[in-house]
C-alpha cells in the first residue's frame, strides 16, 4: 500500500501521478468470491481498490458511502449478487432501490454521481470483476481527486 501516492499538491513534481482511492463494499457471497476468483485466476486489476466485505449489499447503509467520502475516498463501489441470486433472497433488491436513490440525493447535493458506482458481479465472474475495477479506476483517475471533504477538513472551503 506504500506504493500508492496520495493526492498531489501544486508543489509536487510533475512525475507524480494521481492514484485514486476507491472503497468497495462487497457482498460476501458473490462479489467477494468473484474478486477471489479473479485473484486465483491470476487476473490482474488495479490495486486502487480497498475492499470491505459485508454479508450482503442490503447491509450497505448510505452512511458508509458518505463516511468513505468523508475519510478521503475518491470513489465508492458497491457490488453484490445479480438480481435473483441473493443469498438472503432479497437483499440486493432492497439495495437496488435504496442506493440509486441515495445516488440521486448525492447528485442533488452537488456530488458527482459517477463517484458512487454499483455493480453486480457473481462468484463466477472473476473476469467481470477485474474489468469493473479497471473501468472504474480509469474513471476515478479521469475525475481526479475528490477534494470536497478534504477542503472542508482543512477549513479551506
Amino acid at each position, binding site marked *: 500500500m506504500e506504493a500508492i501516492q496520495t493526492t498531489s499538491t501544486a508543489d509536487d513534481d510533475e512525475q507524480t501521478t494521481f492514484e485514486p482511492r476507491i472503497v468497495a463494499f462487497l457482498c460476501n457471497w458473490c462479489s467477494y468470491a468473484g474478486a477471489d476468483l479473479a485473484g486465483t485466476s491470476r487476473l490482474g486489476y488495479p490495486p486502487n481498490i480497498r475492499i470491505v466485505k459485508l454479508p450482503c449489499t442490503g447491509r450497505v447503509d*448510505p*452512511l458508509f458511502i*458518505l*463516511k468513505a467520502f*468523508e475519510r478521503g475516498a475518491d470513489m465508492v463501489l458497491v457490488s453484490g449478487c445479480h*438480481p435473483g441470486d441473493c443469498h438472503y433472497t*432479497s437483499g440486493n*433488491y*432492497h439495495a*437496488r*432501490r*435504496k442506493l*440509486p*436513490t*441515495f*445516488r*440521486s*440525493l*448525492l*447528485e*442533488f*447535493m*452537488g*456530488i*458527482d*454521481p459517477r463517484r458512487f*458506482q*454499483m*455493480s*453486480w458481479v457473481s462468484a463466477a465472474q472473476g473476469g467481470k470483476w477485474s474489468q*469493473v475495477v479497471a*473501468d*472504474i479506476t480509469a474513471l476515478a483517475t479521469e475525475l481526479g481527486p475528490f477534494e*470536497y*471533504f478534504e477542503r*472542508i*477538513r482543512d477549513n479551506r*472551503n
Partner: protein
Amino acid sequence: MQDLTQLLRETAEDLLKRKAVGVVIGYGHTGSRGDMTAVFARTPQQVSQLALDGECYRNLAVYLNKPEVRKLGRCAIVVKGCDRRAINVLIRENQIAREDLHIIGITCEGVGDPKMQKCRFCTVHNPPDCDTVLGDPVDIEPEEGEFAAVEAFETKDIDARWNFWKEKLKDCIRCYACRQVCPLCYCKQCVVEKNIPQWVETSSHLRGNVMWNVMRAFHLTGRCIGCGECERVCPVGIPLGLLNQKLIQQVKDKFEFTSGMSADEKGPFSTFDLGLDTDDGIL
C-alpha cells in the same frame, strides 16, 4: 373559524367528560407571546385553551410517540390533512395503533399567512379516516408544479449545487430542532448520538453538518410527508424542505409512491417490485 373553535371545545369536553380519552392534543394561543402552540387538555376545564385558526401550522403528530404523552392515556389529536398523513406513517411503522387514537380532523384550506408552500400542492384538504371531522368539506384542486423548486435547483451545475449547500450547511448549529419537530424522526437513539463508532461528527463543523443533514433527509425517504416543519423551525434557515422534496420526487418517480396516503401501505424501501425496479446505472 370562531365557531369551529367552539365546536372543537365542545367535542374535546365531551371526550374528556366521558373519559373516552386521557388527553386532547390541539392548538391554542398559549405561547409566551400569545403565539399558537400545542395544548394538552387533560381536564374538561382545560378545553377553553383550545383554538383553531390559520396559524395551526404545527404538526402535532410529533407528540404521539413521546413517552410522556403516552402516559396520559388514550389520545385525541387535532389534525389537518397533512398531519393525518404523518399518523398514517406512524401506524404503518407500528409506532401507534389506530384504535389508541381519537382523531379529530379539521378540514383545511391551507395555513399560514401567506399560505405555506405545501398548502398550494395539498391533496388532503379533507383529512381521511377521522373519528370526528370539523368544518365544511374543502374543494380545492392542487396547483401544478409541486417539484418546481427542485427542478429549478437542478438547473444549477454540479459545482454550483455543492457551493450552495456548503454555504447553507456551514451555518448549521446542530440544534437538532429539525429532528425534534419531525413526527417521523422517532428513534430512541438517533444515529448522531451513537459514538461507538461515531458515524456523524457532532461539532457544528461543515464536515459533520453535511453528514447530518444528508442522513436526516435520507432517513425520511419514502416516509416524509412534506409537512415542512423541519424547515420552519430551522433557526439558521437551511432549506431542508428542498432536500425532502427531492426525495419525495424520487420516490414518486421511481416507485410510484406517495407517503402517508394509507396506513396499510408499505414504505418503498421495505419492499421491492420486480416489474418496476431496473438495473439502470448499475455496472
